[in-house]
């Protein structure tokens, strides 16, 4: 009750539009967030409203709704004074008290109408145009699907194949039909290779994207509990991601067998099953990891690749091997492939090492899955350090497995870290329980203000420390 008044603050309409925007206009997710929120003044902690045309129009509409309601309230009060009718006055008061709810729910109506009447027809047109472009495009099309690791795989393929080929890839984390369609419309038709990252939230998503992008080669990077809150079960998650296999048929599909759920779908003798040990006749040896990168040797028949990458962690080797095999199949020489691998560097917020005041800080905050946590902890354990510090808010969207996943994470962290910093939220207790269960005797810090902690990290570290920061907890999960 003490935060009820925040619904009447002038920033309220902007806040609810921000919540809609951050939920990617998914009304279901928006309502869940709305229902969970008590203090509307503390919603916009990480970011602010991005004033796109859509957001601006919705904001104006929200204010109009509020204006209409308040006009009615004032009319009711004046009428009640004139006619001495207490019922009308009560109606006015009730309307005033529920005005925030009217705006919060009422705004979804013009959003829905706008989506159906304007956005959807426009999107259908864009999708059709993109599909026609891709049908005529002669480039080799590679589609990447998975619960995690898609962006990393995309960037590795881009970097290695670009050594001699003209390669385009979906930018950033664009992986929806409309986002990919817009990307396709910007192609200049001279590309040799196009790499698509396929997103999935519902059954059928991957199939639809395959029909749009028409891939020649597929890569499945891994399957786990990420997005479990959307799919409900791991079986549905797996089935959706393997819609890529259904589309490709006999065309090549690389599958990451370091993911147990993917491995379960792979038949014995599948040459395109990949791991850090090898793929399609390539075998790996002499692996060396450090804070500045990873080295290994890959050999197939008489071809030898001495790979040196700036990417941290052995878990990247399998994906690099996929790039090696595809590069080899489209005509790159071993020297060219080595040169391409040499250019692979940590991507922003993905196992990205930074040297701060004599300490190494590995920023892996874009990682959002349990496999990534495991890979990160393995890396942390392998590095020489005065103190191993692990920082995380936990993983979002783990659905019914939230407790289980986070207790497991706690147990895993306990075996590696000397200092653990948890950002205080709904999963903190689970991770703490996991730490306690494993007898963690290091230092545990619970940070109530993540932004304050991250922006003052330099006060926390000292020479000889290795810090691993993983995962992110955006405002819509707060």
């Amino acid at each position: 009750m003490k935060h009820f008044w925040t619904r009447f603050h002038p920033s309220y309409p902007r806040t609810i539009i921000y919540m809609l925007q951050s939920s990617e206009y998914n009304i279901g997710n928006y309502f869940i967030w709305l229902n969970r929120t008590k203090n509307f003044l503390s919603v916009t902690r990480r970011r602010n409203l991005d004033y796109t045309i859509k957001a601006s129009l919705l904001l104006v509409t929200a204010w109009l709704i509020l204006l209409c309601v308040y006009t009615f309230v004032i009319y009711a009060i004046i009428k009640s004074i004139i006619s001495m009718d207490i019922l009308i006055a009560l109606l006015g008061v009730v309307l005033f008290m529920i005005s925030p709810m009217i705006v919060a729910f009422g705004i979804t109506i013009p959003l829905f109408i706008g989506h159906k009447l304007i956005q959807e027809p426009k999107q259908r047109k864009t999708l059709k145009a993109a599909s026609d472009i891709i049908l005529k495009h002669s480039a080799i099309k590679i589609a990447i699907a998975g619960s995690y690791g898609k962006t990393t795989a995309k960037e590795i393929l881009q970097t290695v194949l670009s050594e001699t080929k003209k390669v385009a890839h979906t930018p950033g984390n664009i992986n929806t039909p409309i986002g990919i369609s817009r990307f396709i419309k910007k192609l200049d038709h001279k590309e040799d290779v196009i790499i698509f990252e396929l997103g999935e939230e519902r059954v059928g998503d991957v199939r639809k994207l395959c029909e749009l992008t028409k891939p020649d080669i597929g890569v499945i990077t891994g399957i786990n509990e990420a997005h479990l809150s959307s799919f409900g079960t791991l079986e549905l998650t797996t089935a959706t991601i393997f819609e890529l296999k259904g589309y490709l048929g006999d065309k090549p599909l690389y599958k990451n067998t370091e993911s147990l759920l993917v491995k379960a779908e792979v038949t014995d003798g599948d040459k395109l099953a990949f791991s850090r040990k090898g793929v399609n006749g390539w075998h790996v040896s002499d692996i060396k990891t450090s804070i500045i990168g990873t080295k290994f040797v890959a050999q197939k028949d008489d071809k030898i690749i001495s790979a040196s990458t700036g990417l941290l962690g052995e878990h990247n080797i399998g994906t690099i091997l996929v790039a090696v095999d595809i590069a080899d199949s489209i005509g790159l020489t071993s020297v060219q492939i080595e040169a391409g691998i040499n250019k692979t560097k940590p991507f922003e917020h993905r196992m990205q090492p930074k040297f701060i005041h004599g300490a190494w800080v590995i920023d892996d905050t874009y990682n959002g899955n349990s496999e990534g946590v495991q890979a990160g902890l393995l890396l942390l354990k392998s590095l020489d350090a005065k103190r191993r510090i692990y920082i995380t808010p936990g993983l979002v969207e783990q659905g019914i497995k939230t407790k289980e996943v986070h207790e497991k994470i706690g147990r895993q962290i306990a075996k590696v870290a000397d200092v653990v910093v948890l950002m205080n939220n709904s999963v903190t207790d689970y991770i703490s329980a996991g730490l306690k269960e494993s007898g963690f005797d290091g230092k545990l810090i619970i940070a109530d203000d993540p932004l304050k902690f991250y922006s003052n990290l330099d006060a926390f570290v000292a020479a000889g420390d290795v810090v691993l920061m993983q995962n992110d907890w955006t405002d819509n999960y707060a």
Partner: protein
Amino acid sequence: MNKTIAVFFGGKSTEHDISIITALSSIIKPLELAGGYNVVPVYIAKDGKWFSDEKLKDISLFRGDGIEDFCKKTKPLAVVFDGGMVLRKTGLKNKDIRVDIAFPAMHGPYGEDGSLMGLLRMAGIPFVGSDMAASVIAMDKVLTKQVVQANDIPTSKFIFFSKVEFEANRDTIIKKVINDLKFPQFVKPSHLGSSIGITKVNNKDELVNAIEVAAFYDDKIIVEEAIENLIEVTVPIMGNETLIPALVEKPLSHGDDFFDFNTKYMSGGKKTSGAKQTGAQGYSELPAKLPNGLYEASLDIAQKVYRATGCEGISRIDLLIDSKSGIVYFNEINPLPGSLYAHNWRASGISSIELVSRLVDLAEERFARNQKLETTFSSSFLKQF
């Protein structure tokens, strides 16, 4: 319940401004980040009035005239000694803040010279840093050198005299200095830090001018013979009985200069692997690259000085090395290093947060130890009157 730590800074001192930076960035901020403490700023204005307010944690208040306006509009604190220390904001309803631990962050006179420590001893609360006696010794360069010499620790030749003596016997004193000490010499006010009022002199005329400058700041002046083949180093040390030295650091000043106030605090400094550093933090070799066992010798001498002078909590020992003879000479102690020399501690593996947390622990450890000492007893002395 969180302990209340009062951080005292500012003061009637030429190092007033430096104290503000030490307090805000190297003490208050890391203490708050450490969690578990209620951190209260206590600002002592240049006129000696005490103030406490959350606004004093913001450096922007101290730029321009903001702090003067603040002091004019705000009622100074009253302090109550009730077996402890209570800071009282008087008004219609008094607001009391009980201080559990004091963290002195005042450089120079009144803050670093034992004055504040004496007050805190009488208040009966733990406080960070050296106790009163060690502070008195450390802030008097003559006294420090005398204590150090008595403990067979090498220090440069020196002569000292008071301002009154100089004014009464100017020629005699100048003659004695020139006869007993070789040029170049360093003329220093005995009680000041941050290299204020220090001059390097190469002849009689410069010597006379320099003494007059030093006499402007202090009533006791010291003249030291310069060390030849000089390498200057400094060593921060933390601890009470058990000592933890940080890294031996070598300021990279020009051969003919010394590390004066401007170089220490105002120079842009070199870029390091992180952000650009200002002052000494960006202009030194850390750890110092010293030949032939001099690194270990420096650590050894620094710790001997720390113990001989009774330092506790934290101090920084400045040393002068004759690189030809290999002798490490004691130069000065700084019982409250500027910004706690946090950059050096960080490079040695102790973060800013850990540094302040340990200093608070050391303060409590000493207080607990001292509590076991009997300082009062009942007697029948008064009955005879």
